[in-house]
């Protein structure tokens, strides 16, 4: 059986850490799932030493989180693993929705060309983890396998973690602790921290099926199909010809019975007919939508499923977890380097609890549509689906999952409110839209030119229009304690000594950002707009930078 061989990572006895008194480390991450690994990689990109503990010595079993959204792929690109994952994964933009056996509606996630990454790729979670582990080791993350964090004390200026290893138990102290130990989070439970929300009364069966099928790589969602009457079914293609099927079972289903192959195989046979297939992995799940009240607890920073959980509709779990660390690690790096007060980390809590609420809202709405809880709710759902056959307005109401998209953190205290008039969505707090560019005559993508540092983008018609005063101010920013890299975006090709110039070859930057010659944007290290103006002002950029780093 199986399309995948699980790697076993090298367990090194942590005897060097088993000292008395315990050692103090600057940064410790608990949990080597996708989110903990992303945190550790980002820490290394910011030059921080990081120690990562995981209770296991392999990757996660089963496909688990299979859909990685465009924004996540951009984050993975920044972390240096996007390309191989996109090559391995199955790209898709088209989603089809069926009522009974008739297609009623389809959507395209990226209707607008001129973006590096597709709307979504499907890839088994173990491939993502494998790639992240390889990258983490390459960057010098100190990963300790088979070390299970079982206890924690939150002190004012550090956290003290108790770990169990095959060599025995030991404690490690951390100036900062990133907690990525998953939905059941032993760390969160040990501290008795609240996580509130509600459980949905439904059960789903996941089956990973190896099959050479000639369906195209699109997402398919059925409401009430003949092969599974009265319930919903979701089909996704993953790498290695593995297909992921999610069957809604209802609340009364017996999970132990339903996972047995003799129950699963007939369901698949009615769905796939005479196709040859092999069952690779089966799991039954229920889900909750809930989040911690605060993602920060003294020196502990909760990320991913440990901090928030959503229903699976919309792929807002792993995707939002990776956006947590994307938003967190640059802030933590500035604080750890003494360049920002630790109040900056309160903005992590504010921005990511806002995003979690948005994810919970959207996935709850999808769940209510997909699994109606009353006859009336079911009637409205079916009415929307039937109207969707003919009428555009009803297609918008059909909610087969609002797929993960990044939040616009427009209310963040880090943003400098607009004083100049702009059109479009690239306002302070916006995740930055991509655009095709040229750099030194070579095709590049805007998102690949962004991130890891603050950046000051200046739009010009011709580089010669940039005056000497502005240029020297931009160069001074780069040399500042918190470096701000200049990025000149020009309508016409050009070059400036020692400064990156991007040529907006198709005018898509100008269109998407409502750029006019002279327009300026300050961009955060996580590729979000934090301020913008129609004209360059040295003092305005400096004030916005102070505000964006809680130094105001």
């Amino acid at each position, binding site marked *: 059986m199986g399309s995948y061989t699980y790697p076993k990572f090298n367990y090194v006895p942590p005897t060097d850490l088993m000292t008395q008194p315990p050692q103090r480390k600057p940064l410790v991450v608990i949990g080597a799932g996708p989110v903990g690994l992303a945190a550790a990689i980002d820490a290394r990109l910011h030059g921080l030493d990081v120690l990562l503990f995981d209770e296991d010595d392999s990757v996660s079993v089963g496909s688990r989180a299979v859909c990685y959204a465009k924004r996540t792929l951009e984050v993975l690109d920044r972390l240096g693993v996007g390309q191989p994952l996109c090559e391995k994964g199955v790209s898709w933009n088209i989603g089809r929705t069926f009522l009974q056996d008739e297609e009623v509606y389809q959507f395209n996630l990226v209707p607008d060309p001129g973006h590096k990454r597709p709307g979504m790729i499907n890839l088994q979670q173990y491939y993502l983890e494998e790639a992240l582990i390889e990258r983490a080791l390459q960057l010098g993350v100190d990963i300790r396998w088979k070390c299970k964090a079982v206890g924690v004390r939150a002190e004012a200026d550090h956290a003290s973690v108790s770990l169990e290893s095959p060599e025995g138990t030991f404690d490690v102290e951390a100036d900062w602790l990133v907690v990525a130990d998953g939905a059941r989070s032993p760390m969160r439970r040990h501290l008795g921290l609240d996580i509130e929300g509600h459980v949905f009364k439904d059960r789903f069966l996941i089956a990973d099926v190896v099959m050479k099928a000639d369906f195209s790589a699109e997402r398919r969602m059925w409401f009430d199909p003949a092969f599974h009457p009265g319930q919903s079914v979701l089909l996704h293609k993953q790498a290695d010809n593995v297909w992921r099927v999610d069957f809604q079972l209802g609340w009364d289903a017996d999970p132990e019975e339903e996972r047995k192959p003799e129950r699963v195989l007939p369901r698949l046979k009615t769905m796939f007919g005479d196709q040859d297939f092999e069952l690779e992995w089966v799991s039954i799940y229920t889900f909750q939508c809930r989040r911690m009240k605060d993602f920060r607890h003294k020196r502990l920073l909760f990320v991913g499923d440990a901090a928030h959980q959503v229903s699976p509709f919309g792929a807002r779990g792993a995707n939002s977890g990776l956006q947590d660390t994307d938003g967190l690690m640059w802030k933590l790096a500035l604080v750890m380097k003494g360049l920002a007060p630790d109040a900056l980390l309160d903005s992590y809590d504010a921005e990511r609890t806002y995003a979690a609420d948005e994810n919970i809202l959207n996935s709850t709405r999808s769940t209510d549509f997909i699994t109606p809880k*009353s006859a009336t709710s079911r009637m409205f759902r079916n009415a929307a689906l039937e109207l969707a056959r003919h*009428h*555009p307005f009803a297609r918008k*109401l059909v909610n087969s999952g*609002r797929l993960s998209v990044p939040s616009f953190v427009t209310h963040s205290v880090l943003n400098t409110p607009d004083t100049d008039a702009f059109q479009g*969505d690239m306002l302070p707090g916006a995740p930055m839209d991509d655009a095709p560019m040229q750099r030194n005559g070579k095709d590049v993508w805007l998102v690949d030119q962004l991130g890891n540092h603050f950046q000051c983008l200046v739009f010009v018609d011709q580089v010669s229009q940039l005056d000497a005063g502005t240029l020297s101010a931009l160069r001074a920013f780069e040399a500042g304690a918190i470096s701000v890299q200049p990025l000149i975006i020009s309508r016409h090709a050009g070059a400036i000594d020692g400064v990156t110039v991007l040529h907006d070859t198709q005018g898509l930057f100008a269109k998407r950002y409502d750029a006019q010659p002279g327009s300026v944007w300050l961009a955060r290290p996580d590729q979000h707009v934090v301020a913008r103006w129609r004209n360059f002002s040295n003092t305005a950029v400096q004030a916005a930078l102070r505000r964006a780093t809680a130094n105001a």
Partner: protein
Amino acid sequence: MNPTLNLQPNFNESGKRYFRDFTPGDDFYEALIDTHRNLSDEQSALVNAKLILLLANHIGDMHVLREALRLARADVVTE
């Protein structure tokens, strides 16, 4: 010319800025389902009937209403 029934997405809320095109419709749909929470099927049917009368009066235009009535009935019964 008579006004026609709008079949394009049309939900919005003044003062609210939308970054995703599905959000205004989802806002409405959630409010609709919430209105029916904890009602019996019979109570829900009554709420729906009252809702239709309220909205129909607001629309007022008989040309538009006849078109909506026709489309709502289409496909439900085979004539």
